[in-house]
């Protein structure tokens, strides 16, 4: 019972947050919806024994990334309400077509396999705890090269962001 609840509530919140993201009008509301989604996902991670990842998610995603989003919303000042009428020709048709195919595909698979996802490999009995030492043991030995590379990636991204947003006309003439 507890397990079910522990799954159902965060799952529901995730979906609710996602729907808020795509359907809200005010951008700030969108951001809040996203924060809700991310937090609920962190809870789900904890139920899946990935504790370290959950913490990192809360810190990085919900903390830093969303703050960035809010900063940009404030800076740009997205005031104008968005037009809801679709301007691109044929877009509505294609979107509905895609959704149709998606739903059809999914129901087809589900119905065919008897409401059970057919996973080829059985689950293991005892799964690992996602503790920091376990992650570190693997991250700094087997996966050390990607680790270094993504730190390089972060530096490059920062430099790129500065280069992109740098305003060359800021200097006042002497």
């Amino acid at each position, binding site marked *: 019972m507890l397990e079910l609840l522990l799954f159902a509530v965060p799952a529901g919140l995730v979906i609710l947050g996602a729907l808020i993201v795509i359907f809200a009008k005010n951008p700030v509301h969108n951001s809040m919806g996203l924060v809700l989604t991310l937090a609920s996902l962190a809870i789900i991670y904890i139920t899946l024994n990935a504790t370290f990842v959950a913490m990192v998610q809360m810190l990085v995603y919900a903390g830093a990334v969303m703050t960035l989003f809010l900063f940009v919303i404030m800076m740009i000042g997205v005031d104008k309400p968005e037009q809801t009428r679709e301007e691109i020709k044929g877009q509505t048709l294609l979107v509905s077509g*895609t959704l149709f*195919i998606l739903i059809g595909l999914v129901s087809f698979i589900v119905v065919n396999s008897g409401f059970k996802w057919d996973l080829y490999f059985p689950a293991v009995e005892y799964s690992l705890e996602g503790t920091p030492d376990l992650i570190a043991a693997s991250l700094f030995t087997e996966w050390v090269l990607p680790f270094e590379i993504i730190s390089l990636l972060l530096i490059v991204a920062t430099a790129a962001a500065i280069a992109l947003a740098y305003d060359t006309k800021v200097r006042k003439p002497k």
Partner: protein
Amino acid sequence: MENLLLVIIFLPLLTALGIKIISNLVNELLLNFLTINSALLSFATACGMFGLLLTDKFKPIHLELFTWIPSPEILFEFTLDGLSGIMMLLVTGLSVVIQIFSTSYMSKDENYSKYFIYFNVFVFSMLLLVMSGNFLVMFFGWELVGLSSYLLISFWSKKQSAAKAGNKAFILNRIGDFGFLVGLMLTLNTFGTFNYEKVFSEVLNGNRESLSIIVICFIIGAFGKSAQFPLFSWLPDAMEGPTPASALIHAATMVTAGVFMLVRISPILQFSETGKLIIITAGLLTALIAAFSAINQDDIKKVLAYSTISQLGFMFIAIGSGAYVAAIFHLVTHAFFKALLFLGAGAVIHEMHHEQNIHKMGNLKTKMPITAAMMGIGTLAISGIPPLAGFWSKDEILASTFANGGFYYGYWALSLLAAFMTAFYMGRHWLLIFHKETGNDISQVHEAPKAMVRPLIVLGIFSFFIGFINTPFFHGLEKVLEETLHYVDITHLPEGITLIILAVVSIGAGFTGLLLAYLIYIVDILAYFKVKIPLKEEIKELSSNTLYLNKFGEVIFVKGMKSFSRKTAVVVDGLLIDGLVNKISSLFYNSSQKVSKSQNGLVRSYVVYFGFFMLLLIGLFIATPWVLN
């Protein structure tokens, strides 16, 4: 001994090459020396070979040069028998005489050496034609003769009319060559060989399939080369060439190649009744049309051209009625007196400083007596007055036609009419040039130089006496051709009193024609008796325009071809083919325009495309195993 044949045939070719090489180094005198001596050498060798043949009772002498294709077996071979022997003598002999004449006629011409090169090439090709041992070598000679004729007709190539005449001759010849070529192909297909003897023996043994078609194809070839109806209009235009060349080519040798060829294939011709009927009808039509057109011509050479066409018609009549010996006899006699007439005309033209209209001449016999006498002999010969050559041969043709009986009587009567017209226009020709007193200024004219007069005298003597080689009393030519025409059904002359009556009738026709010409043109009897011939002007117009046949041909063939090709160029090429290509390219363009509309630069539509097609792909992967089950 057979290898001497090679000397006869290839010596003119070597002479032509020699002249080409040394043409810039020597002057005219040395060139004359070279070419006339080589012609004499050819002629002497030819006489020798003919003598050899004579002693051997005209059994054919074969010479095989090399095997060209092993299977089906096609050799490069030559045959010397009675028929090719006669032609060989004729060609080489006339070559000597006419080349002597040309050295004087063509002197001071800027293309002197070129003339002799072309002349020798022509002699070579004609010898190749007559001495061939199979159809293929004959075809080589056939084509080369056409080429040399073209080169000689358009010799003064800067003149527009000469170039056009050369083209016309070659094209009409080509139409005939097409028939010859189809005939060649059919021969190879039916008999598997080109050799004369093999083909003839096969036919005589009973293999007669597709014989009519082969014969008709060869007949078309003969029509083109020998200027029969409807392929004759090139010959009057061919008078643009130098007169001695016309004498050799269009009087004696090239145009008789058709006659020669038909006599050569007489073993197979005799079995095709359709072929013989076509030949005799076309020959008669040609003879009549040409004789009618010659009545009112103004040019001295055009009269002779139409006369040649008409006499060739006579030869074809002879072949059509089965009198092959008579055809060859007339060929030989006609060669002599027509060459004589042409060379005489050449002398007159040369002395009148290239004036060719006979109405501007008159009473030339006082100034050029020898030429006038020789031309007179030629005119009498062609009119069929005994004992000159033309009488014997023409009479033999008419008698043989008569001897066939049935509807051939009609042919005989019409041929007699053609003979009468021949005498009439030739009489008019000689009288207007040499006898009639007109007021034209001829004080500057004098006798032609010796190099021109002597050949005339030689030819005159021959025209007088050559008829005696095949009289009803001494069948010399028939004996010569006996071996060649051994298996051929020859029509013989009627016997006894019929022959004499026929002879008298044809002499009468000749005399009447000459007399009428004298009366009308000299004594002017029509004005005297105030006889008004109805439609006189229209008849004159019809005659001088060759019954408007030339215009007819021009409208239908030339203009028709031009408009047809223009229409093809515009419709087929412009609309259909270009249109198709344009449509394909515009199809590409339009379709790419439409497809490029999907590249609208919007992120959202790209996202949609991405998702849509990826879902389709996944669905394909999932659905396929399910469908296969």
